[in-house]
């Protein structure tokens, strides 16, 4: 009996010691749990953000508000159950003070409860469905929302003589967000809209594009996840839609900077509205792109990378405001209303919704030198997420 | 009526080949009946139709006066028609004990009871033990069937069929491939089957047939060539020509 008791004591003692020592460590470094899809179909999102986070630490330094930022990277492979479990483990075992990353909407949504229960700020760096920030009071976002990028497109299209639009979107949260926000705004202006949704696993766009070509719209509004954008563009051209005078418009995902070069000349002339282009004309952005490409040869930073970079910026800002206090409530309070000059232009975290307020640019895909770029030619200033703004 | 099993105008053809050709066959109650014929005569096809493995092309089959032509295999077993197989069809990973217990439990209607423990079922234990003793499997009931000698496996074939308490038992070449040393025990087992069970023996081995059967049917090319007592058959010139003559050379 006594023997067993000492064993039990030993085990408990060990567990206690372990938790004390990790608490002591936390006084020194501030741990950020970065959960990204590093494998699977959305791995490019993870790679971009991971690279941007590393770049941030290298460029801006790791110490902010007197605390050293320590990033723990976990791969959820784009699988929501894994995201949630990893978030829980990061909070419980690694005692992270901030959760960050989240490449896709379901991944961010699955973690919301963890953030709420643990009172840990969750910085969403990529996922773009409008409702995400409503899932938990601890969520702040540094990417964008699809309505935010899609509604200005409706305005631009109407103002430029487009009357009839056909929308093709991927059948999941962000796609539906893009479709409804664009269609509502465009119809309200007086235009007509026809819509079709393509399955997430759809390998061939031919049947959908055939419908478009028969409808003979003025413009085709498209949202597909960035990976399949190339295929879409090629089939768009192959079907002769560009020659038939159908303009290709949409939020910037389809002409993602990361793969634009691979899409090739078929992307020329696409008009998109988005919050970031690697060709954004500012000294800060030039330096950013240069440093990014130096650290990651062959990669061009895209809007995901900027979301990751600014996510770290936001964490650093909040930590400076709290003077190193890692309390979750204080951190999220400090994040509300934070504003800074990002490489994409001025940004601000909306104190009411914790979503990002930023400029949306209208861009045209053009050849700059030998490379394809999305060249910005108009700016709509300080756009809030329209879905939440209406509430 | 003293008929146990009967077929009326039974036919079976595969493509163009007629394997069973208008067979009318009667097995009396308590009979020791043998079905013989050269290779390819359609004996096994005939048995497979009786037991429901094959569906006849036409004709019907009755068991104790009941039409069983359309019944499933297991329904025929439940009505008292059991068989052995020419090539061993055993549960290789089971022990003889488990195999006999399985047949017994199905017969007792336990098969669909998911929460019953086998060992707490006195009736099952008693009847399983009875079969194991009768077929002299008691000292090896715990060994995996696949590891037992071939003769013993043939013995289990019969035991498993008998455990279904059949009124009609079809033995499909029970002694096929059994080495001489183990043969005697097997033949004794067959001889010791109780009188109230009607037995149809399908066999090549004439020695066994003449020692065992009181009546013989000769099947050639899917057709009944002749039927009668062993003595009659031995004398029948057609049978001798078609079959016995041939077998003496083998």
């Amino acid at each position: 009996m006594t023997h067993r008791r000492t064993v039990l004591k030993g085990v408990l003692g060990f567990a206690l010691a372990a938790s004390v020592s990790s608490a002591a460590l936390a006084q020194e470094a501030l741990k950020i749990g970065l959960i990204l899809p590093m494998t699977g179909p959305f791995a490019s999102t993870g790679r971009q953000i991971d690279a941007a986070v590393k770049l941030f630490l290298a460029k801006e330094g790791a110490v902010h508000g007197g605390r050293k930022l320590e990033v723990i990277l976990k791969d959820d492979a784009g699988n929501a159950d894994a995201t949630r479990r990893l978030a829980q483990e990061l909070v419980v075992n690694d005692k992270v003070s901030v959760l960050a990353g989240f490449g896709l909407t379901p991944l961010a949504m699955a973690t919301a409860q963890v953030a709420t229960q643990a009172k840990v700020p969750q910085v969403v760096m990529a996922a773009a469905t409008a409702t995400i920030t409503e899932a938990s009071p601890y969520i702040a976002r540094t990417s964008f929302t699809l309505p935010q990028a899609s509604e200005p497109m409706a305005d631009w299209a109407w103002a430029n003589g487009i009357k009839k639009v056909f929308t093709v979107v991927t059948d999941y949260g962000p796609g539906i967000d893009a479709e409804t926000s664009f269609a509502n705004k465009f119809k309200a202006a007086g235009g007509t809209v026809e819509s079709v949704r393509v399955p997430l696993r759809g390998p061939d766009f031919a049947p959908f594009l055939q419908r478009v070509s028969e409808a003979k719209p003025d413009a085709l509004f498209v949202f597909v996840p960035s990976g399949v954008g190339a295929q879409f563009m090629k089939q768009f051209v192959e079907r002769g839609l560009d020659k038939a005078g159908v303009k290709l418009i949409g939020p910037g995902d389809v002409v993602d900077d990361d793969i634009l070069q691979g899409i090739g000349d078929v992307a020329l002339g696409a008009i998109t509205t988005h919050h970031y282009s690697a060709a954004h004309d500012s000294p800060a952005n030039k330096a950013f792109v240069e440093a990014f490409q130096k650290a990651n040869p062959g990669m061009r930073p895209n809007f995901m990378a900027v979301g990751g970079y600014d996510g770290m910026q936001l964490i650093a800002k909040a930590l400076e405001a709290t003077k190193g206090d890692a309390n979750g409530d204080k951190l999220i309070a400090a994040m509300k209303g934070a504003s800074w000059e990002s490489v994409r232009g001025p940004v601000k975290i909306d104190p009411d919704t914790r979503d990002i307020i930023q400029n949306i640019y209208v861009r045209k895909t053009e050849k700059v030198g030998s490379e394809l770029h999305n060249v910005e030619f108009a700016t709509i200033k300080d756009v809030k997420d329209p879905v939440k703004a209406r509430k | 009526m003293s008929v146990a099993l009967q077929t009326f105008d039974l036919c079976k053809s595969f493509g163009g080949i007629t394997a069973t050709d208008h067979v009318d066959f009667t097995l009396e109650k308590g009979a020791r009946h043998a079905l013989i014929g050269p290779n390819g005569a359609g004996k096994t096809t005939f048995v497979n139709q009786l037991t429901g493995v094959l569906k006849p092309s036409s004709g019907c089959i009755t068991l104790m006066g009941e039409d069983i032509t359309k019944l499933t295999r297991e329904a025929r077993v439940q009505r008292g028609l059991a068989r052995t197989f020419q090539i061993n069809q055993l549960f290789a990973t089971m022990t003889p004990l488990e195999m006999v217990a399985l047949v017994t439990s199905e017969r007792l209607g336990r098969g669909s009871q998911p929460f019953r423990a086998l060992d707490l079922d006195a009736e099952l234990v008693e009847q399983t033990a009875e079969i194991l003793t009768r077929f002299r499997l008691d000292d090896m009931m715990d060994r995996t069937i696949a590891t037992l000698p071939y003769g013993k496996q043939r013995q289990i074939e019969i035991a498993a069929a008998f455990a279904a308490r059949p009124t009609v038992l079809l033995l499909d070449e029970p002694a096929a491939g059994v080495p001489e040393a183990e043969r005697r025990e097997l033949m004794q087992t067959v001889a010791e089957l109780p009188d109230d069970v009607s037995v149809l023996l399908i066999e090549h081995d004439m020695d066994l047939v003449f020692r065992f059967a009181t009546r013989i049917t000769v099947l050639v090319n899917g057709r009944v060539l002749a039927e009668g007592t062993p003595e009659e058959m031995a004398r029948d010139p057609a049978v001798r020509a078609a079959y016995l003559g041939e077998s003496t050379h083998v």
Partner: protein
Amino acid sequence: MLTILFDGIAYGMVLFVLGCGLSVTMGLMNFVNLAHGAFAMLGGYVAVLAMQRLGLPFLASLPLAFLSAALVGIVLERLIYRPMYAKSHLDQVMFSIGLVFMAVAGTDWLMGSTQQFIRLPAWLQGRFEIAGIGIGRYRLFVIAICGLLAISLQWGFTRTRFGSRLRAAVDDARVARGLGIPVNRLFALTFALGCGLAGLGGALGIELMGLDPTFPLKFMIYFLIVVTVGGTSSITGPFFAAMLLGVADVVGKYLVPQVGAFIIYALMVVLLITRPHGLFARARA
């Protein structure tokens, strides 16, 4: 509508070239090779690399895709596939799924996870119209190549000595061996041919289906449908199955985009239930 039919046929043609090798391996050695798509992916990547790194023209990269996939197929067949023939279907399935996983992760590691692209020569881009039917040049090219392949395969399968031996071996390997047909070598060759065709299909399919490391998983079900519906004992079976699948998929999506990919799976299950040996299987006793 006819344009859609044309698109569906082009899609089906690629599926045929991708899947027919699988159906022969399945018929010949009764071996379930779910990793078939990995060979297709290999061909695709070889074509991409040949064009991007070596600067080869598109037409030259196609035979390269075929050869490399065939070569890898022959080596793998010798080294690791052969011991699997005697094992159960379940083991074969697990084994080949393992290979798929390795191929997916390995490709990811070597090539990155992004979609790969090729640039078609100008004469294959765009489309023209005949009698109101829009015809994509590239799709026409695919149909021509794959149609030629299908015809020559059918000819080879039915008219040559190799073909007749192959058919004998598919019917009954044991008997064929007894007749002195070198079944093992025959199979190695067929396996290589099947892999090569998959590789070619992978290269041709880049423009239609895209190419990324998850290709073998994404399209596994399509190959399987081609094989299970088409049966494993002929060239024509998988051919019509692939056509049916391609056209049904494309037309279905065109007419009722809401149900998406759902139709083809339902089709497969229904066909498997009603015709468990495949739609075009020869009756066997």
